[in-house]
């Protein structure tokens, strides 16, 4: 079940991306979940260099009020400066809105290895999300005998769960 989810084509390849720039962005980590890069998270919408040499990176916020958004923008600019690009513009892209479906298969594996259960549902049927969440598998022992402790967790993107099999608590990446 988990392997199938990882194999699903969840990530949307950002249009017009330059592979050189992408390689640099792969090294920029999310400040709150440092197991993931901004590309794993699926928030980079494009990365390109204009004729005049300016590097433009489009970034979507995960949550409207997420305080990490500003840090992420500065980290992207800093990484590109370090790589020798002096003229960098980080552009916020609101539409279409970011969804947890855009976390890459690699990102989902990294999340689980870090102890965070990746989103268990797609947001393709949004009204479904008003119902009780589906089974969430424990990132440690893969048991689905888990309980939700709290709809909200330590950051806007996470909820708190516990596993009744291995008895460990764990974070769950919310579906949005």
């Amino acid at each position, binding site marked *: 079940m988990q392997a199938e989810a990882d194999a699903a084509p969840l990530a949307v390849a950002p249009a017009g991306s330059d592979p050189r720039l992408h390689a640099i962005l792969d090294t920029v980590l999310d400040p709150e979940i440092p197991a993931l890069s901004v590309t794993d998270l699926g928030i980079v919408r494009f990365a390109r260099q204009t004729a005049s040499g300016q590097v433009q990176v489009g970034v979507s916020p995960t949550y*409207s*009020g997420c305080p990490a958004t500003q840090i992420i923008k500065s980290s992207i600019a800093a990484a590109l400066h370090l790589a020798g690009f002096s003229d960098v513009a980080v552009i916020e892209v609101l539409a279409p809105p970011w*969804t947890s479906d855009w976390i890459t298969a690699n990102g989902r594996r990294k999340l689980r290895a870090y102890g965070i259960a990746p989103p268990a549902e797609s947001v393709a049927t949004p009204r479904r*999300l008003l119902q009780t969440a589906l089974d969430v598998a424990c990132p440690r022992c893969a048991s689905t005998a888990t309980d939700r402790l*709290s709809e909200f967790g330590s950051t806007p993107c996470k909820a708190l769960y516990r596993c009744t099999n291995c008895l460990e608590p764990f974070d769950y990446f919310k579906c949005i």
Partner: protein
Amino acid sequence: MTELAGTIIAVGSDAPAGPRFRYVLRLADTSLILAQRLGEWSGKAPALEEELGLANTALDLLGQARLFLNYAAELEGRGRTEDELAFLREQSAYLNFALVEQPNGDFAQTIARQFLIDTFLLELYEALQHSADARLAEIAAKAVKEARYHARYSAGWLIRLGDGTDESHMRSQRALDTMWPFVRELFDADELDAQMVNAKIAPPLDAIERLWSVRIDEVLRQAMLKRPATAPFKWYGKRGEHGEHLGYLLADLQYMQRAYPGASW
């Protein structure tokens, strides 16, 4: 002091900005004021999980308020920033629904208020995604995802409280009865609402009310709570008519900018 007084006068004259500005401000202020109210629970919520829940909901709402305020500032075109709009208006220039300025009361009252407004915002943002105003449609598409999560949380708690102990049932019914009169305003279309509907910027409120009612009734049934009778009472926060509660909230919200004009960090 002179400088502060000058600041207030300069940004306090809200009169003739366009209808679209005022409509966006209604959405912005509803999110902003509700975020501030929910933030009041920080440090004293009934349990750590609910502390996180209310504060995270407040954070989402604050993020949405910023998206709306930035757009409102652009529409107004008088050089005001999102911060000036948030912190330096007089009470009557805030256009939030009166529902969201109501005091937190006990946890049941906060949850009843949240359930009524979350369900409204959920249906409103679903519809606003198709607005003729492309920017509003973009903001709504972002906000609706968070609204869905909020609506699930507040409905979940209302059901737990209503279908809980005698005490929690009694308190949640009382909370619902107390908050109910303020829902009239959400659906009572005024001239500005009509203008927005005509311009295909906003959905007709009677359509939103039908969708809202279906979900409200379904959750109330599960919560074993009675839907209160429609109250004749009307209050128009969306036209700047507020009760005394908002003044105290704004005193907290605006304190820093009033005491130290232009302070930033």
